[in-house]
């Protein structure tokens, strides 16, 4: 820049902005500079003053080069003397002082040339004063999350019913008609497709609207910059509880998926902190568990289903905090807590393109899992539900291999109120992935219903399309009504719209009491995470901690579900 300016201007700027490091440092610079100027091999390449300053700052590479020059030893000796002298007289390392003077010089220059407005408090700063307030921050976070879960469970539930009606109606009819057309009518393959794939994996696609709503609101909070504030606020809250505040970021990631949550523990420098946080991450309710709460919530609690979802997330956080406190006092004695400084981005208007991209990525990730892991699990469950074959007929579900294994396990859950074999079997398959709990339930509870529908109804393709489009219109209208109905004292939904459940939800009401259903949700929330998470724990912390996590979570889940059911019963709930 200076080289292209006119010489006179450049000189005046140079004089006006001459860098002065103060008398003590300037004296040391002069001494070193004098020695450098005596060495032609150095002056031929470097500006003597620049080299003197850089050497005093401790540039190791230049020191090596200078050491090989004729005056090198003398220069290095002088550098050592200068460092000792400055440290003794100014009480600070010379390199830090040089850098400090430079920052001071720049700050003075900016101060003298830049005029700033009197008030630098932006709207973002004003919002920050409120949302990161020591007392208001946590309640604001909780209120926002409550709203997110209300929208997710209550409002999106209407689209859930619409998608369910498409899958169990037109889609099933089209598939059956197609299979009949190619001569597979009444074959085992038709039962596999209808009872296995459609009832299991297809039943999971019902939850696409629910997850899309959740991802939309999380992306909205993230894109506006609020999630960074949430991490900051919760960090402080956890420190108050005596836990590592930094752990909250992996825990926050765990709300989406436990696997990256486990890997996010890498941001913690202490191995013990990493293991402790890794053990807590699976307690954060990942999005795969959401369908379970939504199904149970809408089946048993109607308009209050959002409260159940919110309560499950809170219970997860609470159990993680209690477990953290327990571990801190037992196997992981507290290490020194190091607070952090966080650079919060300013609040900004959300970009709906970015949000749309995030929702698409996350939702398609879920759909991919439906057609891979969940479909595979559904087929395995279907096979287990249909063996042993006797006299050319599949067994009664209860007497199938799946039913037999599940019945063996079901008494364990009697104290928690859900000792039916279907629930026990669904929990076992949930070890593959949490969504499989619902797909299995769709199979074991929905088989009879699917069998009833296997005879295609005599509707035309056009009539089916009309049904789908009309259903979408009705669902959209009801969604608007449900959103307005979130306001206190307003209820625009009719009674039948509030209790309009899927076939699976209707079946669940026959097999569970409301209290047992809540206890089941607690168990799903707290029990051993999916295989991918178990693998991540093993990869990061080793087999021993993996087994510890599995057993600890199973124990906590059983105790949590049993306490929920027993205390609820004592309080008169059923």
């Amino acid at each position, binding site marked *: 820049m200076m080289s292209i300016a006119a010489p006179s201007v450049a000189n005046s700027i140079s004089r006006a902005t001459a860098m002065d490091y103060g008398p003590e440092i300037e004296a040391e610079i002069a001494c070193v500079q004098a020695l450098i100027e005596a060495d032609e091999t150095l002056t031929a390449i470097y500006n003597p003053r620049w080299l003197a300053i850089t050497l005093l700052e401790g540039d190791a590479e230049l020191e090596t080069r200078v050491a090989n020059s004729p005056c090198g030893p003398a220069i290095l000796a002088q550098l050592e003397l200068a460092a000792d002298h400055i440290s003794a007289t*100014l*009480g*600070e390392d010379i390199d*830090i*002082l040089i*850098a*400090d003077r430079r*920052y*001071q010089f720049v*700050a003075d220059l*900016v101060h003298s040339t830049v005029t700033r407005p009197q008030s630098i408090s932006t709207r973002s*700063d004003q919002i*920050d004063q409120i949302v990161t307030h020591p007392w208001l921050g946590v309640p604001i976070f909780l209120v926002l999350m409550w709203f997110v879960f209300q929208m997710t469970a209550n409002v999106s539930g209407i689209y859930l019913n619409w998608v369910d009606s498409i899958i169990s109606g037109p889609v099933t009819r089209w598939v059956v008609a197609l299979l009949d057309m190619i001569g597979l009518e009444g074959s085992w393959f038709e039962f596999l497709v209808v009872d296995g794939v459609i009832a299991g994996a297809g039943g999971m696609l019902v939850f696409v609207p629910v997850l899309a709503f959740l991802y939309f609101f*999380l992306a909205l909070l*993230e894109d506006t910059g609020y*999630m*960074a504030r949430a*991490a*900051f606020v919760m960090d*402080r809250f956890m*420190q108050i509880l005596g836990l590592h*505040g*930094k752990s909250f*970021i992996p825990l*926050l*990631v765990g709300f*989406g*998926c436990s*696997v*990256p949550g*486990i*890997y*996010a523990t*890498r*941001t913690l*420098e*202490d*191995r013990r902190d*990493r293991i402790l946080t890794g053990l807590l991450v699976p307690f954060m309710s990942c999005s795969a568990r959401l369908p379970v709460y939504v199904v149970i919530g809408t089946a048993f609690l109607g308009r209050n289903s959002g409260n159940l979802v919110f309560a499950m997330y809170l219970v997860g956080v609470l159990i993680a905090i209690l477990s953290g406190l327990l571990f801190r006092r037992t196997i992981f004695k507290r290490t*020194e807590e*190091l*607070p*952090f*400084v*966080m*650079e*919060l*981005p300013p609040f900004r208007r959300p970009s709906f393109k970015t949000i749309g991209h*995030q929702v698409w*990525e*996350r939702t398609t*990730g879920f759909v991919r899992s439906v057609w891979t892991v969940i479909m595979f699990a559904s087929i395995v469950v279907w096979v287990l539900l249909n063996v042993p074959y006797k006299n050319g007929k599949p067994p009664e579900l209860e007497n199938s291999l799946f039913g037999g294994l599940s019945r063996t396990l079901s008494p364990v859950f009697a104290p928690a109120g859900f000792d039916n074999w279907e629930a026990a079997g669904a929990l076992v398959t949930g070890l593959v992935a949490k969504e499989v709990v619902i797909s299995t339930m769709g199979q074991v509870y929905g088989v009879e219903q699917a069998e009833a529908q296997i005879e295609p109804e005599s509707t035309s393709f056009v009539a089916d399309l009309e049904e789908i489009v009309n259903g979408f219109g009705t669902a959209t209208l009801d969604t608007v009504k449900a959103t307005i109905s979130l306001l206190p004292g307003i209820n625009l939904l009719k009674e039948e719209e509030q209790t309009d459940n899927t076939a699976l939800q209707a079946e669940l009401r026959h097999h569970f009491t409301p209290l047992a259903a809540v206890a089941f949700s607690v168990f799903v929330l707290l029990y051993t995470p999916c295989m*991918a998470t178990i*693998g*991540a724990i093993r990869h*990061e*912390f*080793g*087999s*021993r901690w993996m087994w510890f996590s599995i057993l600890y979570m199973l124990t906590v889940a059983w105790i949590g579900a049993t306490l929920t059911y027993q205390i609820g019963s004592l309080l008169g709930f059923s």
Partner: protein
Amino acid sequence: MTTSTLRRVLQAFEEAETSIRLDVLSRQLGIDLGTLDSMIQYWVRKGCIREVGDETECNTCGVNGECPFVMRCPRRYLLVRRSSEESVLVPDVNSHEQ
């Protein structure tokens, strides 16, 4: 002897009892936000402060490191513990059974 501004920045990290926002620290120290940011970077280069970003990609579900579930947390700065300056960011796979 006077404490240098750079040293005051490091001291603020050492003496902090709770996590703090960068803009609040800037006001507390009376240092312009941009200058404070570069001063922190100075200590990062010296190895006294550690910058933490998003080190969460797990690549287990084949989305090429672009995990849709990872929330993009902003930059955080942590004081490096004196006793463990060689802090391990990536776990040692050989120390699993410790």
